[in-house]
Structure formats: structure tokens, C-alpha cells
């Protein structure tokens, strides 16, 4: 039987996790009653759903439909003149949602605020490009990497991947080495689909060694003619990986255990 692999998250996973492992959490503290962050919260009033301080920066959770309003308030009333970064996190597998964050900077107070909102899979978000021009590129990147549509963006187009690319690479469902389309992209584009057989599939095995390839590699120390067979009759062997032998110690029939008893 084939091993079950979850399809909704194909990223790296720990091969072993202790049964009783409970991940701790980075301490979150309440926003102090006095100070800059408290002022920001009072200015935002009802726009902020939840707020706390995590590792020195205030995190504000807001409603996704109000993102433009919140940003406008933060920029104009609280002095957050720079949007350092904005991007998304894919929580589709867990919650069916994307988490978007905006990292803002106030240079007069030297304070940073992170605004977080969540949207459903096929929802769009309002562009903050009229407020922060840096959002022009950043929102295009979000669209490219996650497929999140941004309303009222002046030029919403793929930015990092080519225009004719299929799929959004930073989704958790997208494997790191790419899908079928990605693996043949350059061959299809340059030579056409009929050359797939000539060129062959990509080599994704990082441990592959071609000892007898005289087409591409020369020999150090002694020269061999081009494309000569230097295997000296040795047949090709596939790499064999050693298998871990698991002993079930719970059964009483274990030979080693019997001996020990």
C-alpha cells in the first residue's frame, strides 16, 4: 500500500515528533496603559479587534474589509509613514484562510506595528497603494506567490514568475521542486513539447553520480575519447538505500529480548 501523504501541505515536515511534545509560545504581553502603543490603540478605537505586544512590536488584528481605513488612520493620525513589508501566510489547510500582515514603521517614535488580517480563499483585499507606494510591488508579489487578488491595484500582474506561469508557488499545496508544468517549462518554451524526450526529465536526485559519463565530463589524469564506454563491463546499478530494521519490542517473541531475559 502506498504511504498516505497529505495533499494540502506538501512542505517539509518533521519525521519524528515526540508524542508529548507541546510547543511553547513566544510570550505575548498586554499593551501597556501608557505610552505610544496605547495611544495608537485609542486612535484606532473599534477598528482593532485584538492587540498585544510580541517581542517588542505591537500586533493588531483587524477585519480584512477595513484594512484601508486602518492603514489610513495609522499613517495620518499615528505617524506610521512607512510600510516596510507586507505579505501573506497560507493557512488554507488548517483554517481555509490566508493571513495577511502589514509591517509598519514610525520613524519619529522608532516603533513598529504589525497589522494582521485574515481573508477566505477566494476573497480579495483592498489595495493600500494610494497610501504607501511600496505596496505597488509588494501586493503584486502577494498576487504572484499566493494568488490573492488585490482590488484597485494599478497594475496587478505577476512580478517574479513569468506571465505564462501556472500555479502560485508559495501555497502550501505547491511542492518545492515544482509541478509537471514547472519541470518542463523551459523545454516547452524554447524547443517545444516534442523535444521533451530528447532532453529528458530534470535530475532532482541530489545524490546521483554518473561515473561513466564521457559525454559531459572529462577524466582528470587520463583522457578518454568522446562518448567512449569506459564502464569495463560493469552493469548499471541503481542506488540502494539501506532500510531501517524495526524490531517490535512489545511482542514477547523477540529473540534478543528472550536472550536478555
Amino acid at each position, binding site marked *: 500500500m502506498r504511504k498516505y501523504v497529505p495533499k494540502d501541505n506538501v512542505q517539509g515536515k518533521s519525521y519524528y515528533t515526540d508524542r508529548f511534545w507541546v510547543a511553547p509560545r513566544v510570550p505575548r504581553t498586554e499593551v501597556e496603559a501608557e505610552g505610544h502603543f496605547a495611544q495608537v490603540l485609542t486612535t484606532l478605537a473599534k477598528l482593532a479587534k485584538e492587540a498585544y505586544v510580541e517581542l517588542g512590536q505591537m500586533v493588531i488584528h483587524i477585519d480584512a474589509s477595513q484594512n484601508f481605513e486602518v492603514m489610513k488612520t495609522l499613517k495620518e493620525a499615528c505617524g506610521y509613514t512607512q510600510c516596510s513589508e507586507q505579505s501573506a501566510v497560507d493557512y488554507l489547510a488548517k483554517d481555509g484562510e490566508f493571513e495577511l500582515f502589514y509591517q509598519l514603521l514610525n520613524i519619529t517614535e522608532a516603533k513598529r506595528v504589525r497589522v494582521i488580517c485574515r481573508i477566505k480563499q477566494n476573497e480579495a483585499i483592498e489595495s493600500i497603494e494610494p497610501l504607501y507606494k511600496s505596496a505597488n510591488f509588494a501586493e503584486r508579489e502577494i498576487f504572484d506567490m499566493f494568488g490573492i487578488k488585490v482590488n484597485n491595484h494599478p497594475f496587478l500582474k505577476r512580478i*517574479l*514568475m*513569468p506571465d505564462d506561469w501556472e500555479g502560485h*508557488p508559495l501555497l502550501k499545496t*505547491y*511542492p*518545492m*521542486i*515544482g*509541478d509537471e508544468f*514547472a519541470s518542463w*517549462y*523551459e*523545454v516547452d*518554451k*524554447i*524547443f517545444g513539447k516534442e*523535444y521533451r524526450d*530528447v*532532453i529528458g526529465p*530534470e*535530475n*532532482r536526485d*541530489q545524490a546521483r553520480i554518473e561515473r561513466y559519463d564521457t*559525454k*559531459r*565530463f572529462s577524466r582528470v589524469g587520463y583522457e578518454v575519447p*568522446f*562518448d567512449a564506454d569506459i564502464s569495463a563491463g560493469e552493469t548499471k546499478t541503481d542506488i540502494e538505500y539501506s532500510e531501517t530494521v524495526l524490531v517490535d519490542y512489545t511482542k514477547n517473541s523477540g529473540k534478543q529480548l528472550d536472550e536478555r531475559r
Partner: protein
Amino acid sequence: MAQHKVNYASSAGLPIVLTSADKLVNWGRSNSLWPLTYGLACCAIEMMASGASRYDFDRMGTIFRASPRQADVMILAGTLSKKHSEFARRLYDQMTEPKWVISMGSCANTGGMFNTYATVQGVDRIIPVDIYLPGCAPRPETLQYALMMLQKKIRRESANMNKNTKQNLRLV
């Protein structure tokens, strides 16, 4: 080149050099290899360094050219992404024959550490490569060594490029 022990200048004889056409042509080709500045990523910095003060590529007759029409050798220095692959092939097509390709760095050779969706897993999937240069990033000395190896290779070839089809391995 043929070597002569007679000093023609002093004995007033004719200055004659005997050689074959192949050798003469290859002498010219191998000693004025003009690479295309094809810096893609990190290796491009090392390529620049090998052209700059300490390593000084000019002493090998190597002058970087910005146009593919003037270049003999393409040094693919760095990661070739899938988005860029089309342009790499296009520039290779624009170079005039005879032309050679040096793939510089692990990324260009095999994709290197970038085993991802966006990276071409070895430029030899789209361009025939003459010299593979290992390292991440290879030192300027390595690039100079590779260029000397390429010169060696050129000197071994026939001046008539049509005869070299098998030697040059035009893969696709």
C-alpha cells in the same frame, strides 16, 4: 607554432614560419577569447573580480564584451532561472560561430543548492556546454583555469567547425 633556432634578423634570411592552417586559426581563436558578460548571480561578482585589478583577465587576451555579436565564449555565471532561460538561449543563438560555453558555478552546472521550481536544473538542458566549473562560487583562479582549459580544447579542434560536430556536442 613552429620553433626556429636560426636568427633570421642577423643572418639576413627570410622570416619564415611554418605551420598548418588549423594551428594558425586556432592560435588566433584561442588567444583572443572574448566572453559575453553574462553575469546572472553571485558568480558574476567573481567574474567581475577576475576581470578587475588583482586577477586581471586582460593578460589572457580576454576582454568582456557586452554584445553577443562580438563574443566567442559565453560564461554563464550564476543561477539560471526558468524565467530567464529563454533569453539565455536567445543570446546563445545570437552569438556567431564558432562559440563556446562555460558553465560557471554549481547553479549553472546542475541547479546546485537551488533544487526548486524556479531554477533550471543545469544549463546543459538548453545550451550545449563545453566546460563545467564547480564551486559555489568558484574563485577567480578557477575561472582563469577554466579559460585556459578551453584554450587547450580549442587548439585541439579542427579549424573547420563542421568537422567538430561530435566533439562540440550540439546536444539539441
